[in-house]
Every structure is written in structure tokens, then in C-alpha cells.
């Protein structure tokens, strides 16, 4: 699986989309109706990403854009919003998130970094950011700031590089069949 990890684009470059502390997944990230309906189809989820707080978000956002959040992002183990973010080619950088939210984001194949202390003080929405999720390097080109954060651990990179848990399992099975 090292080939996929090396080939994966770990460095995202795009605009910052900043959120505050304690943003709940239901409502804050994606409408709760889609969560309770267990909707996991990215194309159906994308139009609703951040729609309750910011209608039209999905039309303005571009691949490579980076969502930067305060503490306790997601507030639980839901996946729906991360599926939409991953399908849009976004990255996620958080001051903190509950562990299950982090595990869900990794499982959806989303490039994510957590425990990025005070990162919301280093950027504002619209700033030009560059983040390397494999090395933990964070750049704000608008403000000429450079900071190093804990990267995505080595062991989890293969999951993200393969598009999430299902992609990982698919690849594992293919390798097992081949041997």
C-alpha cells in the first residue's frame, strides 16, 4: 500500500473556510435529517454541506479548500459530512475533535489533522492556505505564517490514501487474493 500513500496528494492548497468551537455534526455540518436517514451517497450529501449555516457553500467551494475549525468539531461519530467533504476534495484542520469524529473522518478518507492548537487564530475565511497532511506543515500565504502541527499518523495514511475504510478493505482483499 506504500505506492498509494506516496502517490496520494497530501498537500492541499486552497482557501480557508473557518468555523468556531463546538460545531455539531447534525445541523452544524449537515442537516440532521440526512444523518437519521443514513444517507451516505456523496452526491446527495454535497448540496447540503454547511447548508443550514451557509446556503450555497457547495457551489463556492473548490477542491483543495481547507476547513479550519475550533475545538470539539463534529461532537460525535457521524460520517455524513466527512463523506461530502472528501468527495469535494477538501481538507479538515481542527483545534480538536472528539476521537470518534476523528476516526469517522479518517474512515471516510478525508485528509484531516486534529490537535492543531489555536489554529483558528492563524487564519480567516478566504485566506490562501497550504497544508501538508503527511508532514503536518501549515502555511497561511495571505498572512505569511508557517506552523508545524501533528500530522496524520503514518498508520492512518494508508486508509486516507485508499479513500477510506471501504477502499482500504477492497485493496486488502485484492492483495490477499493475489498472494
Amino acid at each position, binding site marked *: 500500500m506504500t505506492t498509494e500513500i506516496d502517490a496520494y496528494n497530501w498537500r492541499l492548497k486552497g482557501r480557508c473556510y473557518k468555523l468556531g468551537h463546538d460545531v455539531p455534526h447534525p445541523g452544524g455540518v449537515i442537516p440532521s435529517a440526512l444523518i437519521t436517514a443514513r444517507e451516505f451517497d456523496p452526491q446527495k450529501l454535497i448540496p447540503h454541506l454547511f447548508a443550514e449555516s451557509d446556503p450555497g457553500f457547495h457551489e463556492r467551494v473548490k477542491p483543495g479548500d481547507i476547513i479550519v475549525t475550533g475545538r470539539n468539531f463534529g461532537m460525535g*461519530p457521524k460520517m455524513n459530512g466527512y463523506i461530502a467533504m472528501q468527495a469535494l476534495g477538501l481538507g479538515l484542520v481542527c483545534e480538536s475533535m*472528539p*476521537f*470518534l469524529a476523528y*476516526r469517522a473522518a479518517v*474512515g471516510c478518507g478525508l485528509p484531516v489533522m486534529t490537535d492543531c492548537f489555536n489554529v483558528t487564530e492563524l487564519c480567516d475565511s478566504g485566506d490562501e492556505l497550504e497544508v501538508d497532511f503527511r508532514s503536518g506543515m501549515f502555511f497561511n500565504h495571505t498572512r505569511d505564517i508557517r506552523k508545524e502541527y501533528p500530522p496524520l*499518523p*503514518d*498508520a*492512518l495514511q494508508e*486508509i486516507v490514501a485508499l479513500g477510506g*475504510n*471501504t477502499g*482500504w*478493505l*477492497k485493496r*486488502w*482483499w485484492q492483495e490477499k487474493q493475489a498472494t
Partner: protein
Amino acid sequence: MGMTAVEKVLARTAGRAQVRAGDVIYPDPDFIMIHDGLVRGVRRELDALGIDRLAAPDKVMMVTDHEVIYGSARAAEFGVINRNAAKAWGIKNFYDVGRGGHGHIFPMESGLLLPGMFYFDNDRHATNAGAIGAFGFRVGAEISRVLATGTNWVMAPQSVKLTLRGKLKPGVHARDIGFRIARLLNDGALNFELDYRVLEFAGDLDDLDLAARAALCNSPTEMRAYGVFFPPSAAILERARLHAKRPFTPVYADSDAVYEASAELDISMLEPQIAPPGGIQQSIDIGGVAGQKIDHAFIGACGSGMYEDFAIAAQILRGRQLAPGVRMFIAPGSEQSTHRLLAEGLMQTFMEAGVIPLPAGCGPCNDAVVGPLHSGEVSISTASNSNAGRFGARDAKLFLGSPATVAASAVAGKITDPRAMKPL
């Protein structure tokens, strides 16, 4: 630098001399548990990938506990899907309806889950394993990877230590300690947080039997603890040895283990607690809510489903009747407990009082698949939490208390301090 108890469990199963909080490891579990509600989704996922066999079917325990009595055509369909999956995957340890009980309880009682063990589970109440000095790790739907490959990634959690001091007053129960801990955490009166932490208990624990320890695993889990750990006492070890289905080695934290935080709690003045609707973190002394009328009562679920919990309730119910208009259910945690309650006459006590016994399992605590509430009704129970909608109608009011408090309240028809209702 030493290791915490859970770090030691993880080190053994990961084949490493040392594991530290934050390490990502792939433990080789002692067993793997999947509960009834998730089998269908996992089967579909693995089938779609062409994965037609499990890494270690002999290690898998499939448990029917969340929906034991099929109350709908859909549930009956799930039952068929689960039995087909067990057959296709070659799972011999299939504890279907009437054959085991609650997956977080019966394995501890019957010597399948033993001190020092590690296992993967899809359900978060795997934290109950800490009662016997083991560690159950919740992976949710990622149990599919565990079933297919035999393991999954685990980031070793931090441990925090809570030292209990003193003896509980008569009539006060381990669940009351749990409710109080939740309130203290909410108020910032305990200097740690529990998200993805292991809460390791220390101090005056010898009075806490297995049921009390399981009870104390419950509320920390609702406060997002990923594990709870009790160092096994001599009595716990003796009980484990009596039933053990295989050899085991208990683990204890090193004296120089590293904890993220530590605190002490004096339990000697604790009053019976009530968790009000909305959350255990708002728990208060029973005096603040005594007299609240109730319609529905339930004893059972992860935190109060062992024989001892029902024995406490039966002491209060013996020779008494439920108040008019109150319906009460019990769901023992294991078939074994149901049999013991029958053999010792306690089941008769419950039935003579007017209580409806349910088969071993989760009871109403799983999405109210049995025994739900109507809009505006009021319940007191030993469920895991009192969140809106847990027992059906979102505007039903759910209160939580210890088994003794629930039994006394069901007799009185209103929330009642169990110390006011002496055994007849």
C-alpha cells in the same frame, strides 16, 4: 516509566514490550463481538467486496441482545439475515435469542470474558469489560475490518485515575456514584475529561462486587469514556476462576504508570441520585425530585443487568405491589440470571408485584423496541441515559436511578428514596 492497566493489555495483544497513549497498534484480540443490529450492514459490505470468509470465525461471538423479541416483520427479517450470516461465516459462538443474553453482561458471568483480556466490539458499552479488569474496544461499523482481517487500528487512549474513598451509605448504589461523577465532570469539579480516555478506578474498591463495577462503567461511558478499568479484587478473581473457560492473567497498573490526570472522590456522604430528563450530567440528590409521578419503570440494561441488581430490587418489591397505573419491566442481563432469579424465588416476587419480565437483553434501552412510552408519559429506569426519545416519544420524560430507587418508585407511583421503603 510504567504502564497503565489498559496499556499493558494492549501491549500484550499487540506483541509489544510497551505501549504508550497515542501509539497506533493492531491488537490481536482474545475475541470479537458483533451485536444483532449491525450484522446486516456488515454482511452487505463484505459481500459487496467479495469477502466471503472471516479471518478467525472461532474468535467471533455474535449476540442477539438489542432486539430479542421480534416486535416487527423487519426484526424477524433481521433475525433470518443474522442466522444466515452466522452460517455463511462459520460462526459457532452464536448467542441467538434465548441462548446468552446481553453481550456486555453474560460473557463476564460465564467465564468467556476474563481479567486481562482484550476484545473488539461494534458497541460502545464494551466498556463494561472494565468491571472484570478487561478492555473492550468499540469500533462501530468498522467491525467489518476486524471480522475480515482479524484486527483494526487502535490508538492507545490516555488513562485518568479516580480514587474512591469511603463506604457507601446503606441504600446508596454504585449507579449513584456514576451519576454523581457525570455531574461533577459537567460542573468542572473533576479535573479531567473523559473523551476517548480510560477511567481507571483505584482506592476503596473491595466493597464493589462485579455488578457494582459494571454499574460504575456505565455513566463514564455516557460521558464519552472509551474504557473503564477496575483492578480485579481477590473476590473478582475468585469468581472469574470459578467460571473461566480458559486460562487468564489479570493485569494491574504499574506504580509509576502515567495518567493524564488524577482525582479523588469521597463517596461516604453520597445520597441516592436521580438523572433527570436530558442527561446524567444534570444528576441531583433524590430529594430534589422526590414525589414526581411516574407511569413506567424499567430495570436492566448494561449498567444494571446483573443478578445482584435484581436481588436489590426484589428486596424492596417482596410483599408489595406496583402502584396503580404503573407498568414495570425487567430485562435480566443473561439467561443464567433469569434462571437463578427463578430458582431462588425472586422472579416470583417480581411477578407477584405486577412486574413484566422480558427476555435477557437490552430491553427498552435499545430504541424502545419493547416497552416504549407515549407522549407526555414519565419513566424511571436504570437505562444508560435519559436522552429525549430513548424510550420512544421525544416528549416523554425519562428519569434514571439505581435499581433500588426504580423499585421503590414503582411501588409508590412516584420518585421515592429507597431508604424510605424498608424490606417487609
